[in-house]
């Protein structure tokens, strides 16, 4: 019975160690990911994708096995993320370094003609190209003026002018540009960062809310543009 009790205690202790280690690693990983900057998975450069995967892999090892020193992983994580930041800063400063680390976009269709050499250089088949174009909703090759493989592996397509969507400018119409809408009040709370970005000040936002005769705490969302309130919804409008 005593042995059972001791084993149980040790098990609980081990769990507590895992809990603390997981917490420490979570804080470190979040800090490092924030330091690396914001990018969505689909927009990552190959090197960034590899670093992100490595970070998660290295962080998971000491979490799974309590006998592995956490410091080993921490050192590896620090070094990887530091080099990633340094290389991204150097990429910003120098075009040469950028093209060496990230590569450069490759034109695979030029004036409607497939550049087979460029495809071979990318080690891509025509099938891969067709598939990438289909994913961009382009099914007719004859409509394409240019197709470019970007450094993050995505394809950009420029259609011939006669196949592009027409815009207001095509019909000589220039509607007034109200700029972007900023959601300055969300869930009854004024979001100060957004207010700053919107170009309004706090008192102006409060005044805008008052003119609509809705107390701020009752507003679900209020967005503003250069003309003033663009959209407002009460919390109770949605039941």
């Amino acid at each position, binding site marked *: 019975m005593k042995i059972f009790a001791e084993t149980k205690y040790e098990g609980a202790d081990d769990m507590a160690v895992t809990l603390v280690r997981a917490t420490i690693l979570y804080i470190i990983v979040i800090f*490092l990911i924030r*330091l690396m*900057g914001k990018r969505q998975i689909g927009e990552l450069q190959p090197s960034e994708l590899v670093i992100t995967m490595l970070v998660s892999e290295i962080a998971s090892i000491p979490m799974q096995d309590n*006998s*592995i*020193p*956490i*410091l*080993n992983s*921490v*050192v590896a994580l*620090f*070094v990887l*993320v*530091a*080099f990633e*930041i*340094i290389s*991204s*800063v150097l990429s910003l400063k120098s075009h040469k370094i950028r093209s060496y680390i990230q590569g450069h976009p490759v034109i695979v269709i030029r004036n409607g003609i497939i550049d087979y050499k460029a495809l071979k250089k990318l080690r891509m088949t025509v099938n891969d190209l067709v598939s990438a174009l289909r994913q961009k909703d382009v099914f007719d090759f004859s409509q394409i003026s240019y197709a470019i493989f970007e450094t993050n592996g995505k394809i950009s397509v420029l259609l011939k002018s006669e196949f592009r969507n027409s815009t207001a400018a095509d019909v000589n119409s220039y509607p007034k540009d109200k700029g972007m809408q900023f959601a300055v009040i969300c869930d009854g709370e004024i979001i100060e960062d957004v207010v700053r970005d919107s170009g309004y000040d706090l008192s102006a936002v409060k005044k805008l809310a008052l003119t609509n005769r809705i107390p701020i705490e009752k507003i679900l969302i209020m967005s503003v543009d250069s003309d003033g309130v663009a959209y407002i919804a009460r919390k109770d409008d949605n039941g």
Partner: protein
Amino acid sequence: MKRLAAAFVLIAAAVAITVCTGYFFNREMDFFEKSLSRLVDISAVSTDEALLDEAKRLERRWSEASGLLRSVVLHEGIDELGRSVSSLPRLIEYSGREEMITECIEAINLIKNLKSCEKLSLENVL
């Protein structure tokens, strides 16, 4: 620029952790190597009580340092060394000096092996 500074801080932190853990490991290993050699040297002239005191002192020091050693070095040799150091008082009391000396020499060799395993060398890097 802030990011670049943060990157250098991360590298400095990584280097500092590496240097500190390396220093701690080397200091402890040197201490145990010297203490075990001393135990072998004095075994010819000391009384059983003096030897036992020395071995117990070593065991206590090991129990103080082993936790941190395990947290900085991932090597089975650390546990083996712990078993060797902990067995010394028992060997002196029940087995005899010859066995104790053999255990000490094995532990010294293990320390040398551990030191070479943890050394920054081309072999270890590769």
